[in-house]
């Protein structure tokens, strides 16, 4: 048997990407990283992302790398809605705890082009008890996509079986077991999470979780991480798990689950 020399493994590439990102975070990704999952935080108006949740995208990527074969950017970036960089990758996370500022014309144009090219936008409510961000985001997105209105998606949607078999959506809190989405061409392009998904993922500098999931605690956090992984796989594979070849397996497993 031939001696196997140094191989390019996924983890080595992830580490290389991590190092590269630290060294030159604004440069283009290395080979194999160009198509890596990157949960970029979307910036609109003058508001900065929640400081305590800035670590959530990195954690999200790390979970994706640990749990799946997918590559992910361990040091995700931020992107402005009116910047041309928004069109560099097909995924962004728009999160907030209060109603967003009214989108500027340039931001509307940027988001409209992002969606038109096939981008996926996750809208995450960081203050589920109030829900003002999601409400405001829907109003603003109605200006971006006048012909699209959110609909409820549940466990029959591919997002709930993109990697894990999930019965409900969750996050830092358990406000709503379902998600909402704006479906275009049969594909969910804007997903609304009302449960503060980033809050469940966030960690502080010491590695501790700054937010305690309620009411389910760590079990709920695990479910939130699984949902985040599913969203990542949905972004990377689209509706792959809707393929007919998967149907009998998934039906069997769904059937074996306890209600």
């Amino acid at each position, binding site marked *: 048997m031939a001696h196997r020399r140094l191989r390019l493994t996924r983890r080595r590439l992830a580490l290389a990407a991590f190092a590269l990102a630290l060294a030159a975070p604004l440069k283009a990704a*290395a*080979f194999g990283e160009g198509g890596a999952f990157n949960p970029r935080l979307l910036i609109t108006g003058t508001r900065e992302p929640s400081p305590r949740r800035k670590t959530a995208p990195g954690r999200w990527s790390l979970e994706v790398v640990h749990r799946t*074969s*997918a590559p992910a950017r361990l040091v995700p970036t931020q992107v402005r809605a009116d910047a041309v960089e928004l069109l560099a990758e*097909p995924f962004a996370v728009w999160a907030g705890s209060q109603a967003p500022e009214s989108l500027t014309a340039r931001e509307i144009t940027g988001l409209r082009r992002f969606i038109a090219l096939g981008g996926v936008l996750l809208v995450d409510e960081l203050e589920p008890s109030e829900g003002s961000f999601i409400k405001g985001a829907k109003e603003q997105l109605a200006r971006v996509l006048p012909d699209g209105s959110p609909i409820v998606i549940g466990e029959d949607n591919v997002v709930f079986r993109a990697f894990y078999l999930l019965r409900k959506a969750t996050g830092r809190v358990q406000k709503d077991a379902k998600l909402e989405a704006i479906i275009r061409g049969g594909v969910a392009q804007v997903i609304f999470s009302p449960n503060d998904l980033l809050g469940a993922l966030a960690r502080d500098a010491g590695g501790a979780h700054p937010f305690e999931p309620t009411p389910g605690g760590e079990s709920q956090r695990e479910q939130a991480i699984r949902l985040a992984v599913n969203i990542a*796989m949905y972004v990377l594979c689209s509706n792959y798990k809707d393929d007919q070849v998967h149907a009998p397996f998934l039906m069997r497993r769904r059937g074996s689950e306890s209600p």
Partner: protein
Amino acid sequence: MTESWAFSGDLGGAFIVVAFCLGGASLVLLLAELFGRRKESAAGLLVGASGVLALGLLMLAVLRPVRVFERSNNVGARLLVLADASRSIDLPADGGTGSRRAVANRALASLRDHFASVRVAQFAFGRGEPVPLEGNDVLRQPMPGSDLSAALEAVARGTDELPQALVIVSDGRLERPSDGAVEAMLRAALGRLSVPIHTVSLATEEPRDASVRSVRLAGSVVAHQPARLEVEVACTGGLVCRDLDIAATELHLGEPSVVRASGVVHMVDGRGTVSLEVTLDRAGRRILEVAIMAPEGDSIPENNRRFVTVDVARDRVRLLHVAGRPTYDVRSLRTWLKSDASVDVVAFFILRTRTDDVGASQDDLALIPFPVDELFTKHLQSFDAVVLQDFDAEPYGLSIHLRRLAAYVRQGGGLIMVGGPNGFVAGNYAQTPLADVLPVSLRGIPEDQAVDLATFAPTLTRAGRRAPVLEPMTNLVGERWPDMPGTNVVGDAREGATVLLEHPRRRTASGAPMPVLALGEYGSGRTIALTVDGSHLLQFSAFASESGGRPHGAFWDAMLGWLMRDPRFEPAVVELPRGCIAGVPTTLQLRALFAEDGAEADVTIERMGSGEKLKQVHVRFAAGDAPASVDVGSLAQGGYTATVRLDRQGSSAPSRHDFACEVGGDEWADPRPDGARLEAIAKATGGVAVSYDGIAKLPLPRATRVVSERRVEAWLPPWSWTALAALAMGGHWFLRRRVGLA
């Protein structure tokens, strides 16, 4: 010089008849008058005689008779001989000695002797206008078809002197006039030409033979769907046939033939039919060989097999998409494939490796096992193409199937290898059977140098700028490509491959620019190597947004189209205007698309099965749209592939045309001579039907007299006749007065 006379030198026949009628009537009136008045016999006789004389001279004065001096000769009648030059006359002659062609040539010589006194012109006919046989020419090479009606139409509508008779030399196996409608079809062909058609039959005996009479496809053939081949088999000449084994085999280039169906034909009274179910997996032009196992004593083994060209349509492209890990590149390609209604994609993405810690039980996962063995054994042939995207062959058990995958390509399957950290050398494909069907070499590349992390923008090669397959994309974005985040490292393009995109800086070991996008053709299949994993940037990037993300679809649509031999992306079209007859020089016609005037091309002819390269020809296209003709020489019976590369070797993607050469084709399928049809032709036109040894019985058409000099002299001057007539009329009047008549 001959001498004769005529009643008149200037009056037409009608006037002469009128003159004689009037003269006769006058004579009758005169005799009636004489007998009515009962004159004495002597006087009456005298009056009558003078009257007759006066009448005769009056008529001569009116007609003025002349002497005619002529110089003339007899010219033989024009007779056309139409000799059947189709492939059927290469069948054995009576008694199995020699061919019917030899008999035909002897018959032509006999006809020249027999009709030595007439003007004979001999023609050979096949399909279309007959071809003249000059002097003592004989029938040498077979012509396609045997359409006598077309030959007769050409004769009847020709501007040459019309013939007085026609002689057909044939074995009676004619396309037209067809059996049962001989008279009507002859009438339609000849139009106003009404001449006897004599026939000379070249054979009368049925050869002892078993043959595949016909092969018909019931309906159109669609890839992956069963189609029915209706095959008719017959035995003639007393050959005893019972059950005959039959097989339908698909031919491939450089690969063994594959038996698609087999069966037994049950023969009853020398005839039998069988319906074979064949399923062809590859769309495009395919060559099927249908062959029977003939019993001993078969005198014509060549017609035991027929080659059928089948244009296999594609309902949908059935494509297997295998990706080593989910990325935006995988997402983009999948999204495009799923959006194309003409593509039926079966996808398997590796979502979890053995080292991934999913933190959940199997039942909590929506993951299914990757059925690599099942896919690449049982189901592989059901796919039109396979896409291996950033996929490592080793950990997922694909390595043991690479030989099968390479054979799949050679048998007509398509393969696309898309780059990534697990592609090409990094994916353990070097030194495997699959590497032999990739358009780029993977030799001599260390594993630790299998990828190049440097960002670059691929550049179009000269071939890439001209290739129809990149035209849809260049129409959108020109020659620009977005920056690619690194590439797999590959070697030189393999022989016969076409490089469309290359690395602007990186060189192979030979010093050539490293290929980034290369196309290749191996056996009957095609492969594409794309060494980057950034084609998604054609769909989603600031670059792509300038054209609405359409470059990605344009690029992959063309790639898949080329892989599936979509004519839109073929740089050249190959045709065989006269088909291919085994043993007869064959001519190909090339039409170059998207090539400027004066373009050149290399044409390679290879034998299917063995892959033996038989001929390589270099041709130059003329200005304009005129096709280039390529003489490929005489080919033996079998299937062939003509591969055309425009410009010079490797400069364009190859265009391929599969074709078959048969010895006899349809015309040997039924080797029996058809004397009855020849007799019907002769009978319908008033001709005579004879066999090749009865040419002496053919009637000779009458010769034509041609006057070369003619001189007319009056016997007497006109006034002399008038004076004599006046004197005679005066004498007659005097005698009538003397005997008391008015």
